[in-house]
């Protein structure tokens, strides 16, 4: 991948407060085995 001439290179240090890695989507909720019985 040609990203340009090496002599144009300069260093950047990035330390994010939170890493930009999203949490996986929650698994779909399971249906209750039985209908909840009202108290």
């Amino acid at each position, binding site marked *: 991948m040609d990203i340009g001439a090496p002599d144009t290179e300069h260093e*950047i240090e990035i330390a994010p407060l939170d890493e930009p890695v999203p949490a996986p989507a929650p698994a779909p909720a399971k249906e209750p085995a039985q209908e909840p019985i009202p108290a």
Partner: protein
Amino acid sequence: MSSSAFLTEPIVAWRLWHVRRHDDVHRLESFTWHHVSWPAGTRFEAECSTHGVAAPVEGHECGIYAFKTRELAEDLLRRYTGVRQHYGRPNQELPPLRQGCPIAIGRVSLWGRILARENGFRAQYAYPYELFLIGGEDTLARELRGLYAVDVWPS
């Protein structure tokens, strides 16, 4: 190199991936280094056969590559598929791909130590930010969306 800039916001750049099946799931795979798959749910870390996890290193070519613009990533795709631009008439259409060999073009978050050049970056850490499939349908987009937890747009 005389000094470094210190930032807290990741750089968002552009790159290409192959999309290939590993065992039972499709994964993103590095475009120029075949069979290097990108992990889901955790950062991808640069590693160099010479410098190990110290990559990227100044004066070397190691690190995770990304372009500054989508156009530069599309140029690489055209070169990869062998479609040349006509002199004076740039071909803006992306070329058709081989059946069953989808490619993702997309944005990627970069952080850690980054070496920036005029057209792009070599980074220490990366994670996909948003993907556009080329040669991939809804089913594949859903699978990648579920795996990497980022937006994925089908062809």
